[in-house]
């Protein structure tokens, strides 16, 4: 045989042709996802807004347009004001304290020894475990009498606490659990961000006589800002939608101490059958998250450096 010998080309037919055609028709390909998107995301959202302006008794099935009555009710209700306050408090802690912890651990763990790698993996583990599992674990450890936490505290002679069962400590417990679970994810991103800063930038800074602290605040932090911003926004969103841990550990209690807006929507809608009020609260939640996404996508884009 010679390299210049030709061979016959077989033409495709049957299934191949059908599949080829199918794969070229974009509308068929996107149809399942897009139809579901319209039917089970966009339409329910509109429906939610619609319900927010109505009073609807699901048992009798009577529906009445009440305009802003639901919203007025919410803002006059002490419970809802408390829920908003709780959400902001929760958000503040998991965002700022959480981010600071992630940053410190991330900088500390940014080395490539086996022990550092192992620690990274261990810290990451809670992220892929179900939130309800994490909640159960901490419920066991925070149990007032038989729990690990109080045992350790009393061995060191420190005052014990009721943790998630006490009105004044429940919020702190829930915040602790949430930060514990989300640390690994953030640490991983921060390490990746740190490794993304090229060495020569640090070398240039050394030649510029920059002291390590100066380099950290003037070079590292600004260059890490995309990662930090991403973490900031995803954490704020997760604060607004936090549900699993609350449902499992406290059911919003005691005395609404840990009732966050996402849980409040669920509580009003599914437990108290107050569809109108639930959806009015959901609209407020939607305004928060949509604004955040919008900031994320459009506005902050210019303030942060990316290459």
């Amino acid at each position: 045989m010679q390299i210049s010998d030709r061979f016959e080309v077989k033409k495709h037919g049957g299934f191949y042709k059908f599949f080829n055609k199918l794969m070229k028709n974009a509308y068929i390909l996107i149809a399942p996802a897009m139809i579901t998107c319209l039917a089970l995301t966009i339409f329910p959202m509109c429906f939610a807004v619609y319900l927010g302006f109505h009073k609807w008794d699901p048992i009798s099935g009577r529906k009445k347009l009440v305009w802003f009555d639901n919203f007025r009710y919410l803002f006059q209700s002490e419970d809802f004001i408390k829920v908003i306050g709780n959400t902001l408090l929760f958000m503040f802690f998991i965002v700022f304290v959480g981010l600071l912890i992630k940053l410190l651990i991330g900088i500390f763990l940014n080395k490539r020894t086996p022990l550092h790698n192992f620690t990274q993996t261990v810290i990451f583990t809670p992220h892929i475990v179900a939130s309800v599992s994490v909640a159960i674990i901490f419920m066991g450890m925070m149990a007032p009498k038989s729990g690990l936490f109080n045992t350790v505290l009393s061995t060191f002679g420190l005052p014990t606490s009721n943790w998630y069962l006490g009105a004044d400590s429940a919020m702190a417990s829930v915040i602790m659990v949430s930060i514990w679970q989300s640390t690994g994810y953030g640490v991983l991103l921060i390490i990746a961000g740190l490794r993304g800063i090229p060495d020569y930038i640090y070398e240039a800074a050394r030649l510029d006589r920059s002291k390590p602290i100066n380099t950290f605040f003037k070079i590292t932090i600004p260059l890490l800002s995309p990662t930090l911003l991403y973490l900031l926004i995803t954490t704020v969103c997760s604060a607004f939608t936090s549900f699993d841990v609350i449902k499992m550990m406290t059911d919003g209690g005691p005395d609404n101490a840990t009732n966050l807006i996402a849980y409040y929507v669920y509580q009003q809608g599914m437990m108290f059958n107050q569809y109108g009020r639930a959806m009015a609260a959901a609209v407020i939640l939607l305004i928060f998250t949509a604004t955040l996404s919008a900031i994320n996508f459009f506005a902050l884009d210019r303030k942060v450096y990316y290459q």
Partner: protein
Amino acid sequence: MNSAYKRRKVLKLIGRIIECLLLIALIMVFILPFYWTLITSVKSMWEAVENPPTWWPREFHWENYATVWNEQNFLKYAKNSIITTFGASIIQLVSSTMAAYAFARLRFKGKKTLFFISLADIMIPAQVIFLPIFIIYSRLGILNTYLSYFLIYIYSGSTIFFLRNAFMQVPEELVEAARLDGASEFSIIFRVLLPSVKSFMITQIMLILISKWNGYFWIQVLTTNDHIRTLPLLLNSILARVEGLVIRYDLAMATNVLIMAPMLLYIIVFSIRGFVLALQCKARRIPLLGKLIIIQFDYFYTFS
């Protein structure tokens, strides 16, 4: 000169020791809760709530696992977990891959608008739309069916988004070369496109599977009986069962261990592999899942 050198060396050593201690403390903070779960799951009902708690079970009650396993509901919930995990994952993957392929590689009218709409669920959290969906489902009479659960996952904006970006990374020339070689669309997709984003796909699949296995919210709000309820919801009912004022932490923890087992096994296997690679002085990389998260993060910024 010599003493200064010695002093520097001593300081360095102290620094290393402090670093190691901090690392161990960190590991403790994150491993201790898992250790706690494991030992509590094999304690007796009374030892599990003893005050002060024991650090090592006095006797091993492996039968806790048998109790959980033989619980009438456990197998049903486990079956539901497996069906919903794989069913929803496959549906989400297939439909998202199809849409992502179209958005990444085909030209069609209204692509930009449709793509923007397809990102809706990034802005609309589940907590806003669950009640309307519940109402729609109850009108349709499909509450407490697998179908009702699967329907939700036909559309996942973030999956479409990430897969689309992955497909866009594959150079057009590669696909064109395959086309000139007489490859059909079928083999282009399965032999060229998907293999070149293999590691991305594998991690994406794992993340989807994990999120379905861990899923709680949708099952919680879309079910009124235990027909399709999954293992995470079993925890609720076990915790609610109080025997003579004693919460059955032993049974709850045993269930919990069974729920976490796939993920913990993955992490353990991964760590061992990491250590083996480290011993062989091979390049150590970020954990597989971690890598995906970083890729996702990169895409997030490519887009915005």
